[in-house]
């Protein structure tokens, strides 16, 4: 009986093997990345149109080799890079991402001081940006690729509620709150929005704008009276925001749909709002606080995975740093050059709005540059989460800033200790691990 069983099992397998064979024919897989010779993975330009535009830029400006461009979220990238570098079987040669995306990858990146730093200097990349590329360590892990910041987009309809005497191009935190309150009352429903969705970048507001503007620092002034005051401001401001904000990831969508009229966000996440009718919009610098105008720099960088083809990758990176490529990226995808490049006088209208706002922000009196957290490695995500938790407990759950914030200080210190991270701007760089103040 056993023999018969196996026999007809073989028959069964025979027929199904035929089916399986058709599958196996295709089992080598069909390439979904465009099939270039050299693969780049990136967390940037993920929206479908931006990606298509960047693929055009790549084919136009990169001649070394044909580069395929695969986008993924930062966590996916972390998984891909760590598992591929770990197994020594690399499917890609170049990594593009924001400073914060590259941070947890540091151990898996090639040191590129020799291969690229001189080239980068020659292209005119500022020293402090190059310093960021060390990710808090001794050696250069990434080369700056492009930069951006966060500003406010304002639908002109909202200007009528602007507090008297306020200049929309130089607002203070106080005026923003007054404005939001007046607009909410006059309109009958909130007019301001805040990117507090799951993919929103609201934690960057606390880290790079609110705290530096109110306290002059972030970590060293974490639980100072000024910090508590700033969170009280945030609580009051939130009360005037559209409560749907907890679902907003990219502010350009609720802005474009008219759900909200004023919002702060990353320039690349605002550019879609004025796209169709730029005349209805203004873009203005982030507000100024008691200590000045704190703003966070967004830096995108290019890195080479450990064990990758450094030579080819370096050639490609060199082409990324050419002024023409950088200008094309600005014109099409709203990221600003890091190299010295002459900005054309005629930019697309939406880009022009952003360009002016970013320039005004950087040139403002009392500007305080805040860097994204440096040297945090894998703790980067958890540090951001602490700020998100502060927001949730103070604004959503109605907690008192005076009790919530001191309760989080210890958590922040633990993270810094684990990562052995020194302070970064705007906190004064000192010796040893950064201390929560």
């Amino acid at each position: 009986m056993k023999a018969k069983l196996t026999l007809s099992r073989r028959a069964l397998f025979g027929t199904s093997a035929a089916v399986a064979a058709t599958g196996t024919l295709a089992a080598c897989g069909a390439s979904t990345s465009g099939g270039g010779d050299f693969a780049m993975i990136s967390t940037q330009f993920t929206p479908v149109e931006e990606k298509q535009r960047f693929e055009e830029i790549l084919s136009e400006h990169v001649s070394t080799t044909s580069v395929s461009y695969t986008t993924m979220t930062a966590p996916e990238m972390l998984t891909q890079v760590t598992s591929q570098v770990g197994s020594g079987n690399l499917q890609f040669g170049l990594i593009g991402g924001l400073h914060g995306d590259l941070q947890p990858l540091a151990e898996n990146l090639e040191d590129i001081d020799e291969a690229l730093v001189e080239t980068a200097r020659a292209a005119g990349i500022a020293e402090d940006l190059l310093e960021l590329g060390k990710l808090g360590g001794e050696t250069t892990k990434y080369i700056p690729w492009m930069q951006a910041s966060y500003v406010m987009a304002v639908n002109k309809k909202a200007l009528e509620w602007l507090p008297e005497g306020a200049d929309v191009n130089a607002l203070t935190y106080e005026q923003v709150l007054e404005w939001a309150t007046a607009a909410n009352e006059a309109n009958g429903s909130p007019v301001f929005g805040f990117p507090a969705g799951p993919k929103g970048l609201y934690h960057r507001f606390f880290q790079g704008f609110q705290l530096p503007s109110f306290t002059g620092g972030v970590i060293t002034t974490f639980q100072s009276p000024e910090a508590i005051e700033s969170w009280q401001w945030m609580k009051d401001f939130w009360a005037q925001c559209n409560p749907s904000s907890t679902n907003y990831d990219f502010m350009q969508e609720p802005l474009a749909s008219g759900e909200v009229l004023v919002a702060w966000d990353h320039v690349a996440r605002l550019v879609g709002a004025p796209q169709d009718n730029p005349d209805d919009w203004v873009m203005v610098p982030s507000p100024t606080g008691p200590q000045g105008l704190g703003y966070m720099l967004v830096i995108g960088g290019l890195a080479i995975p450990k064990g990758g083809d450094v030579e080819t990758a370096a050639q490609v990176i060199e082409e990324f740093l050419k002024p023409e490529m950088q200008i094309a990226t600005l014109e099409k995808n709203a990221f600003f050059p890091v190299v010295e490049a002459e900005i054309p006088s005629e930019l697309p209208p939406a880009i022009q709005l952003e360009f002016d706002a970013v320039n005004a922000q950087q040139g403002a009196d009392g500007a305080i540059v805040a860097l994204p957290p440096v040297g945090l490695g894998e703790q980067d995500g958890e540090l951001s989460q602490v700020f998100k938790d502060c927001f949730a407990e103070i604004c959503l759950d109605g907690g008192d800033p005076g009790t919530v914030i001191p309760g989080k200080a210890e958590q922040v210190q633990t993270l810094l200790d684990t990562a052995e991270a020194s302070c970064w701007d705007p906190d004064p760089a000192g010796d040893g691990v950064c201390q929560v103040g």
Partner: protein
Amino acid sequence: MTSRPDTEHGTATTAPIEVDKRPLRRHQFNRALIQLACILISLFMVVPIYLITISAFSTRQGLNEFPQPLWPKNFSTETMATFLNSTGILAATLNSLTVGIGTLVLASLVGAPAGYAIARFAFRGKDPYQLFLLFTRALPIVVLSIPLAQVFLATGLYDQPIGVILLHTALSLPTTILITSSVFLSVPIDAEEAARIFGCTPVGAFLRVVLPLALPGIAASAIFTFVTSWNEVLGATILTFSNRTLPAQVLSTLGDSPVAFRFAGGLAMIIPSIIFIAIMRKYLLNMWGTTIR
């Protein structure tokens, strides 16, 4: 034994005319109620699909209107075209089909025999075995996929449809085994025994008697397997890189795109599944159309 339909009403039935009409009227009323219920449920099931369809074929500005029109007022194929023209959609569809069919075949080959064993045989360790199956399905896919990615990278299965097939088979085996076992359970054992008495070998009895009866149910389980694989995104994203399946590709292409594109991508993913169910509907229909005895 016979019975008169009016016995339920007992003594109330005096005039012969009423006896005939009341149950009939009630019957008609019931039929109408059943139709009404069916229509309401159908609306609940279909209207959301209709809404995403008109969203997917609206202009981006049209989606910003309020109130939203419930008919295709701002018809446009722009977002859909942009989505379909983005790199890799065709290749991803091909990969998804490969993975789906591969999973279906592998899961049925490995799973159906086990389902039969559970339905027909008492063996030691049956309950632990069934629990073990469920156990595997209860582990979140993220935690499952990352160690697998490392194993696949080391063995060369990474970024290959076969790797995703293996994961998806593992994910759908518990369901395949459970569904097929309940299908085999519903095939009367008498029929099989009769075949055995008339000289069939166990295998012959299985192939000639049990399998034909169980086939519609197995088809249903296969549909479920295919659909599970077609829609699975978390594991596929981790196990592939440049040979992505459709949902993984859609997620990476559209995850951060404006909502108009996401509607287009969502619909583009739903349509093939609707067609697939339409083709396999016959089997699903057979399932209650044929009675076993």
